[in-house]
């Protein structure tokens, strides 16, 4: 199969998956027991008010028509209207997304760097005390609720040591504006990038200080799987002939480990990054809530508190689409890097 036909078939496979996902969310929110409108009002509204409310949100139409409008609306980027104030859910999600993206990027970077470093060390000292403790770390990091770890960090580094802020994304009034040159304006919504575009190092440092605790928390929790993966891959690789050959040529152990063996683990790590994206988003929801980080996760949790079901549905669909998109990109990237996969 050529790369092009692989890409086409992979995209075609994504379409039924997305349709299934949309249907699943629709079934959960609209058809499972529990009428969203009634639950929203908690029995504190007259029937006439409820009718009017349904009509405004389009919830009075037959289910199949609602379903159709929902799918067609999505194609146009319309995620429905919020039950709270009839504002566009899509717009709110797009404005919250950069915060989540920034947190995710830094967390994933910490998870991969920490995981690969520890995994490589463990494989070098296979079956020693160091190896065992790193393995235990890998399992333990998996068993810690991310919000518990976050609170422990907040307590130690924020409240006791006053080293890092415990919540928020940046001090009020310091939000970076991005690059402005005449009429041209470029802003990514990622504070660490926008502050650099603006050429303001103090804002950059401030943004990093706010990012540090949340991304360290989420990064540590996600690192366990990378520890495991790197360790088992490297143990296998270190037994191969080309490693022995490299050692025979007198290369230092460090060069063999990081220059030769680690390269072989690159593809599985890339795949795992794609697979972990869903876990990353789930972790982000809890981390954002812990650190009052104004992203998608906190938006979702806020909406749950308000019993705003249309917004909950929109946010969940967005999460699902994001995961489908990322796994598509990772698969294509993988096929490009490793032609065997296309066979």
């Amino acid at each position: 199969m050529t790369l092009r036909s692989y890409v086409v078939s992979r995209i075609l496979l994504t379409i039924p998956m997305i349709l299934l996902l949309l249907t699943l969310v629709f079934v959960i929110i609209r058809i499972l027991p529990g009428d969203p409108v009634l639950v929203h009002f908690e029995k504190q509204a007259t029937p006439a008010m409820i009718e009017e409310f349904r009509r405004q949100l389009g919830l009075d139409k037959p289910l199949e028509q609602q379903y159709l409008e929902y799918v067609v609306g999505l194609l146009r980027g319309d995620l429905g209207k919020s039950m709270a104030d009839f504002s566009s859910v899509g717009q709110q999600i797009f404005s919250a997304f950069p915060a989540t993206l920034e947190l995710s990027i830094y967390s994933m970077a910490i998870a991969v760097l920490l995981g690969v470093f520890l995994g490589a060390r463990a494989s070098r000292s296979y079956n020693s005390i160091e190896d065992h403790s790193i393995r235990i770390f890998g399992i333990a990091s998996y068993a810690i609720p991310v919000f518990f770890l976050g609170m422990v960090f907040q307590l130690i580094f924020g409240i006791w040591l006053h080293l890092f802020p415990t919540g928020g994304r940046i001090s009020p009034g310091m939000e970076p504006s991005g690059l402005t040159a005449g009429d041209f304006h470029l802003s990514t919504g990622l504070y660490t990038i926008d502050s650099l575009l603006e050429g303001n190092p103090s804002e950059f440092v401030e943004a990093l200080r706010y990012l540090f605790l949340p991304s360290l928390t989420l990064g540590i929790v996600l690192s366990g799987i990378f520890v495991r993966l790197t360790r088992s891959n490297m143990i296998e690789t270190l037994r191969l002939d080309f490693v022995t050959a490299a050692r025979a040529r007198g290369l230092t152990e460090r060069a063999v480990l990081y220059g030769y063996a680690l390269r072989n683990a690159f593809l599985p790590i890339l795949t795992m990054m794609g697979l972990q994206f869903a876990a990353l988003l789930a972790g982000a929801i809890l981390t954002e809530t812990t650190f009052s980080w104004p992203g998608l996760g906190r938006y979702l949790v806020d909406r749950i508190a308000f019993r705003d079901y249309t917004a909950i549905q929109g946010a969940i669909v967005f999460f699902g689409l994001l995961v489908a998109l990322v796994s598509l990109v990772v698969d294509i990237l993988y096929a490009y890097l490793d032609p065997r996969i296309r066979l």
Partner: protein
Amino acid sequence: MTRTETRGRIVVQFLPRVASLRKRGLAGWITIIGLAMVSAVVVMTVAAPWISPHDPNEIGAGPVLAEPSESFPLGTNHMGQDMLSRLIWGGSTMLQVAVLSVLVCLAVGVPVGLVSSYAGGLVDKSTSLAMDSIYAFPGLVLAIAIAAMLGPGVVNMSLSIAVVYVPSYYRIVRSQVLSIKELPYVEAARTLGASGRSTLLRYILPNVLPSVVAVATINFADAILTAAGLTFVGLGLPISTPDWGWDLTYGRRLLPSGAWWVIAFPGLMIVILALGFALAGEGLSELLNPKLEE
């Protein structure tokens, strides 16, 4: 061969492997330590009515937000409730939710996986696609959606967690069946006239079970963490139920006061329980499927 004989054989094959855990090196020890941690929590929870010094819901059992002391070894919370009593009682919800959701997963994931992979064809393709779609979805997000609609309660919480993890069971069963059904002994059974149903239940299922046991053990840890996560986003049980997840969630608001004991102890209990299951599952999967680890 009668049915009881077949069952007997499964038990005989399975038990000695688990019984001689200590002789099996690190994986055996990991399993023992994990199971010991879980058992300790279970014993404490069951014995709660006898060992708890106060009623876990008693408001004003002591001063408000008292540090750990001799009379309140784990301190008190913002309502003057005794944290030690809440800790002793608080595991029951999580254990119930974990057991119930794993049971639901087993009851749905295993049979669907068996049938779908054995039948093959369109049935298998469409079931796989549906399961893969759920599997790809961020688990917590899906559980949040379902829990938000079903409302609070132990059963509802367990169901919303179960939906997320059924695909894991389905996938492991399916991949095992696909490789086992090509083995000569299965072919032999079929040649000797065993029906599809009995091939599946008597010859294939027994060899699938060990992997399912390992997945289920690790899944207890997932269920506990997901339950804690659901509580943290506000979809937990009513306040009247003492629960580590709830104490931890409320503890966040008390953090600025520096009351570390309100979050530290319930948090550690969740870690102990989840880690116990994770260790046991890790050890078991290495003991039962040595090849998977290589």
